């Protein structure tokens, strides 16, 4: 039977590790919340894009023996920018033929875009298997190359919990990535256009903005964020293999639903909540499968009780306060 290890140490460790994990996985889910919440495309390729970026950066990192340019804290910036170009490719091959000239997304279009992104996803997954010198998984030594701003030991001890420095760095970068995404979506005219095309594409074209261009922008933003966060995910987990997609992708769905579709900060907080729940269960029971079962049970409960998202109010409150201030 399950044995619960209810000690203060376990709870502290669960919360701290959970916040670090949640920050990374929350930033991974942001690309999905933008493309799903705003463009109403249930992007099944999201997890594949994330893992693709992680695999690519691990491959480069190991090929160039840990050169500074390829260490995750630096690589996530330029791989993110590369992701923008990849987003254009993704949009024009997959989404444009299906929803390019659709004004309002009905269930039918939602389903066909879902199928198209699924096709793109498995094609991307297949690419891992046709590359020459294929390796089934990459491991990155966390002690090399993460020493920027954290020279010396690989581990720190905080409140009696041993934490890897690289994971802290990744969670901070995840938070920064979230802030960038929030700023792009809520404070720039691009974000305004993106939110407008979701509400009424025809009205947008009436005021002289090409809806197709805005849709490209959405796909580009979502893909760039996905690829950048994929590198962070590599930096956090230090090892990566193509099949890890089957864990990442459903977790992203849970987080996006918790955070409320289209809400960047809500998604980030959803990630933190999920991370804490996952690590607490893991620490208390010592069983990873039970921890993941709890994570998905949260999804079921949240969908039934509050399908609009548990943390969707956070963004509204914050922007309201900012306006008054």
């Amino acid at each position: 039977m399950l044995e619960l290890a209810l000690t203060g140490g376990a709870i502290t460790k669960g919360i701290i590790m959970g916040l670090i994990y949640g920050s990374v996985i929350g930033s991974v889910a942001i690309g999905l919340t933008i493309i799903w919440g705003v463009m109403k495309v249930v992007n099944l390729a999201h997890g594949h894009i994330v893992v693709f970026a992680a695999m690519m950066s691990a491959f480069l990192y190991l090929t160039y023996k840990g050169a500074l340019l390829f260490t995750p804290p630096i690589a996530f910036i330029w791989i993110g920018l590369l992701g923008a170009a990849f987003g254009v490719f993704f949009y024009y091959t997959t989404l444009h033929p299906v929803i390019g000239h659709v004004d309002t997304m009905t269930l039918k279009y939602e389903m066909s875009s879902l199928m198209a992104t699924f096709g793109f996803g498995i094609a991307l997954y297949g690419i891992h298997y046709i590359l020459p010198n294929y390796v089934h998984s990459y491991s990155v030594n966390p002690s090399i190359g993460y020493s920027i701003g954290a020279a010396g030991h690989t581990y720190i001890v905080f409140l009696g919990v041993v934490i890897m420095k690289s994971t802290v760095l990744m969670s901070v970068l995840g938070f920064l990535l979230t802030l960038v995404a929030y700023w792009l979506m809520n404070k720039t005219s691009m974000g305004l256009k993106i939110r407008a095309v979701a509400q009424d594409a025809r009205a947008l074209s009436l005021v002289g903005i090409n809806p197709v261009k805005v849709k490209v922008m959405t796909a580009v933003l979502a893909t760039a964020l996905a690829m950048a966060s994929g590198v962070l995910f590599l930096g956090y987990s230090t090892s990566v293999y193509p099949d890890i997609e089957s864990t990442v992708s459903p977790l992203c769905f849970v987080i996006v639903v918790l955070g409320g579709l289209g809400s960047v900060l809500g998604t980030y907080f959803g990630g933190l909540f999920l991370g804490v729940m996952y690590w607490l269960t893991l620490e208390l029971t010592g069983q990873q499968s039970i921890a993941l079962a709890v994570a998905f049970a949260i999804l079921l409960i949240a969908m039934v009780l509050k399908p609009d998202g548990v943390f969707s109010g956070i963004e509204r409150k914050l922007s309201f306060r900012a306006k008054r201030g």
Partner: protein
Amino acid sequence: MVSVFRRPGFIISTIIVLFFLVLGYLGNINAISRMYVSNGTDLMYYIGIGLAMAIIMSYAGYVSFGQAVFVGIGSFSTGYVLVLMNRSNIISYLAKIGSGGRISNTMLAVYFTESLLLAITISVFIAVVVGYAVLRLRGAFFAISTIGLDYVVMYLVKYITKTRSPFGGEELLNPSMGLTDMTFYWMHFILFIITIYVAYFVKISKFGYGLAAIREDEDAAEIMGVNTFRYKIYAFALSGILASFWGIAEAFRKSYSIGYFKLDKSIIMLVENVVGGIGSFIGPIIGSIIYYLLEWSFLTTVGQWTLVILGATVVVVVAFFPEGIVGLLKKRFPRLRKWLE
């Protein structure tokens, strides 16, 4: 009213069943023909899961990402019956009759029935309890919540196998029972007959018309006196039972593995339905056959490129034939309409 036995859907499904019957009888000649038998087994599996999904997706219009949970439950039931309950029985029986033996048909029938009963019980329980909560949701929300259902059950089963498997870890390898490909073929065939006729008779029954009404307009259906909520739960449970059959069949053949719960399985079922065309009985069958042929021919010709080309094909099909094959045929060849139920 045309007699049921002269309706095109019934005739087509009978032709398919007869095809598999003939394949089974002609199959056991030499190595090459046995290869076709193994292909036929795979094809029955693909059509089976496609039709299981069709009841909830094609008939009722509810897209579920989590139907793989029922395939997983079926395969886990078989793993439970063969490995956790009866492994020592099978091993001692085979040791008694000497090398090269196979388990008796009675034993096989008993294990098969036990797996069926276990799978049906768990599937119905989960479908009714969870369906009661999540079938109030519609569209993408329902679809996503079924992902949650799938993964909750998957990780709980993973925990059970981890703690109870005789091999340690997550494996439940079937003990060798001395069964041949032909045995597995006929086991698939039994389940195939059940699946295809159940799927067809649901489609033409009052229940099926109720589901069609739900698919077209749920609110209108409710006003017209269809008990939509109860119908949806029945459809979810029935779809689950049929899906669990295919988990059982495959687990007898290839042992239980956690892979049966993975999202890919649900997506394959979904692709089959969409490629074939939503709203019909023939659609999922055509979709499954096409999916299987594509996957198989790519696998034998292009090897490692399979997934890339398959993915690209799905993208192209969705972009250019959004109505599915059946929709396309109906538009191009109006004469065929009668046959595309």
